């Protein structure tokens, strides 16, 4: 079996691995990103609140504080370059009583200590003026205008697509199984062919402890903290403009009301330690989230719910991100315990790791021709004139497949070319099936389109990888007919 030889191997195609591989693709390096799932972003990075946090919450002096404030600053330009779905909508932390107002003042101090800009306290009246659907019982708020929202998987796809366009290799369905340190690097065993790398970055999310242990580093101890989230119909668009936070508790930022970039309203997340990595949602989760969210926005109705999901935060024992060379080898860098605000911090984590790589002695030379841009067609975001022109050029953009979200056959084809191989891969890249009918009408059509584009029989098309196939083959009558035709 041939060996893939690279300068840097990044393990884990979540937002951290993706941001890093994109940052590294600015340099003259041979790079590979490996992901054990069928697609990038299928771990924690697809199932979270999608908030670009301002940085008011984090404890001053921590890596979390430093990197989330920096990450938040990087987002506007990054979004302009990579054309992912992001909006700087601002955040508001609300107080429900006089005592809580005192807490808000402390939070302002905390944020300022972290370097968060433009923080201000606002009165009850001002709060009602800017967010009229918030509960009348709220007595004041803290405004953080730098905060934003992002479609997290769209960010990961944008980062990896751009890295690949700049020469990085991406290997999905590739799980790192063992790592052996050699004279000038590492020999890495996977479920496919082996990889030899001069330097490794461990961005394996929940599995960061296992991956570190492969080189004998047992210092990374992680556990999972689950968060459930509930998503409401887009007809509620505009219910709140800003992301609404209650005052934080010891373990989490509380139950939030989040406007998504796509115009839905989302409420959540819970924060409970779990022993197994199962992603189920529960009645208990709903019963915790819904009443809490209603205290912020009393008009929310359960009948507008369209779906729910959960994600697992990889939490380290120190309470802070662990981003440093391993105690075992200076050329094995851990990026572990990247719980919230990991999504926000990811672009800054990438910069930070690049500095660590420089320190490790690996020579980094800037590429002459780095292309920072990625673009993608999103029919429903275009004005009618642009839509008409696009359809004239390529009729596939005129054929609508997902009616709820207005996604065309052309975009689905593009998604396959961008790397989607499963129904969820298409859904996350195009939004098809994410709307109010949740794929009732478009699923059969997407199975067909995927099957044609990938050249696979429909029964091999899966929801999100092996074991999640959607069909069990043909019906008896059709099978008999086909066999006759072949005879």
């Amino acid at each position: 079996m041939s060996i893939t030889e690279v300068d840097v191997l990044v393990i884990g195609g979540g937002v951290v691995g993706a941001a890093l591989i994109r940052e590294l693709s600015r340099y003259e390096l041979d790079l590979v990103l490996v992901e054990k799932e069928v697609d990038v972003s299928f771990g924690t990075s697809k199932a979270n609140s999608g908030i670009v946090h301002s940085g008011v919450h984090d404890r001053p002096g921590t890596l979390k504080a430093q990197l989330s404030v920096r990450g938040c600053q990087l987002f506007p330009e990054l979004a302009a370059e990579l054309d992912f779905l992001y909006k700087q909508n601002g955040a508001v932390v609300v107080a429900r009583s006089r005592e809580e107002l005192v807490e808000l003042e402390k939070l302002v101090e905390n944020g300022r200590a972290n370097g968060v800009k433009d923080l201000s306290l606002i009165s009850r009246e001002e709060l009602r003026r800017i967010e009229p659907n918030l509960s009348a019982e709220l007595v004041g708020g803290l405004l953080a205008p730098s905060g934003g929202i992002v479609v997290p998987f769209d960010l990961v796809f944008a980062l990896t697509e751009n890295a690949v366009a700049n020469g990085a290799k991406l290997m999905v369905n590739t799980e790192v199984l063992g790592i052996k340190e050699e004279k000038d690097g590492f020999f890495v065993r996977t479920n496919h062919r082996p990889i030899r790398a001069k330097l490794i970055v461990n961005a394996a999310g929940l599995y960061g402890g296992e991956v570190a242990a492969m080189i004998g580093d047992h210092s990374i101890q992680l556990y999972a903290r689950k968060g459930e989230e509930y998503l409401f119909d887009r007809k509620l668009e505009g219910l709140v403009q800003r992301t609404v936070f209650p005052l934080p508790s010891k373990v989490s930022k509380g139950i939030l009301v989040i406007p998504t970039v796509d115009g839905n309203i989302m409420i959540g997340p819970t924060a409970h330690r779990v022993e197994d990595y199962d992603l189920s949602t529960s009645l208990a989760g709903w019963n915790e989230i819904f009443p809490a969210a209603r205290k912020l926005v009393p008009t929310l109705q359960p009948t507008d719910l369209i779906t729910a999901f959960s994600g697992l935060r990889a939490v380290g024992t120190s309470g802070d991100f662990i981003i440093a060379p391993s105690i075992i080898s200076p050329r094995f860098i851990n990026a572990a315990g990247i719980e919230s605000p990991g999504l926000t911090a990811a672009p800054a984590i990438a910069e930070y790791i690049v500095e660590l790589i420089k320190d490790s002695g690996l020579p980094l030379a800037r590429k002459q021709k780095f292309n920072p841009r990625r673009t993608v067609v999103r029919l429903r975001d275009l004005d009618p004139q642009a839509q008409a022109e696009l359809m004239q050029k390529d009729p596939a953009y005129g054929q609508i497949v997902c009616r709820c979200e207005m996604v065309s056959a052309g975009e689905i084809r593009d998604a396959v070319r961008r790397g989607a191989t499963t129904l969820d891969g298409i859904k996350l890249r195009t939004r098809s099936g994410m709307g109010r009918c949740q794929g009732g009408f478009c699923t059969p059509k997407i199975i067909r389109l995927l099957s044609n584009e990938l050249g696979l029989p429909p029964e091999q098309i899966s929801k999100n990888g092996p074991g999640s196939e959607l069909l069990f083959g043909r019906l008896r009558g059709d099978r008999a007919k086909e066999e006759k035709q072949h005879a």
Partner: protein
Amino acid sequence: MLNTKAVDLVVVGGGPAGMAAAVAAAEAGVEEIVLLERQAKLGGILPQCIHNGFGLRYFKEELTGPEYAYRFMLELKKKPRIQVKTETMVVTITPDRQVVTTSAAEGLVCYQARAVILAMGCRERPRGAINIPGTRPAGIYTAGSLQYLLNIEGFLPGRTAVILGSGDIGLIMARRLTLEGIRVRAVLELMPYSNGLNRNVVQCLEDFNIPLYLSHTVTAIHGQGRVEKVSVAPVDADLQPLVEKGFDLACDTLVLSVGLIPENELSLQAGVELDPATGGPVVDSFYQTTVEGIFACGNVAHVHDVVDDVSAESAIAGRAAAAYLRGEIGGNRWLPVKAGRNIRSVVPQRIVVGQATPLYIRARFPEKNAQLNVGHGHSKRRIVSPGETIYYTVKPEDICSQEGFVRVGLEGGKVDD
């Protein structure tokens, strides 16, 4: 500039409602009619309904879904004034009746219509909307999409299934899956009665020994890649699950038949007022909505038990649109319907004075030997069930226009048996 075409009538949706409305409008003399359908073929949901039971009321004979649709396709063929555009999706309708469409064949096209008939049908309520806890594996289908995969695409979607919801599609799918060799372990129904037609309970479940668990629901879905089992529990009088009395059913497929929702996103764009009781537009005896010149019929207006009723109602809408284009309707005096005891919904919601109007009435709960009162008219009803439409045609003399409304109610029935 967008390519804009002026036409008399645009019909949105080429299912049974849109086809019947277009045909009726053409017969009533409308010159230019455009019928828009997003699927490749006309017929809406009918082509996938390969079972029989269609046409008993309208054609007085028993047809399958495709046969029923075919009759209307033949009618359409005879009407060269109707331009049929398939694989054409309507993306916007404005209150002044501009209808914007997209298609691979023509790109973006805008029709400026003098009248519009909304006939978009309905969609199925998905899993998320009923908030079933658990994992999110493959193998969870709504009944209609499963029916499409099976009957149109010819795929075997699973081997062992549990069906949640005893609406008609759920019942019919129980039989259909069984005939294809898929084991249906149970049909579960949250309510203490089936929401489907009684004949379907008998012909689709009892004849095949498929157990129907009334007052039961799915409390959790299990399985990582594919569904492995579902947890089931009985519910109390408030429909809350009694988890301690629950049990698990192993299956690889969960079929959801938990309700249909009229697809009114376009209607809302057009400024049409919806009735919360039906989920469809508020219409008058002519099936005109609250926006002048915009009509609605079929399942977009309210969910029907049988397609025959859709055809009948849509013909009224088609003829009314023709009359509207001739300037014959408009400014009619109407009275709103007021729902009384045990009435969930009544369509039309506005009764035009002096106009005999067939009503589609739905009850809230089952009862026996009740009297249906509509204005001053009344009739006896032996069995009332939320799953079956109550029909009544209001006659002009049933209505007293001084009252300002028409009360509809069921009185004197016996609730338990």
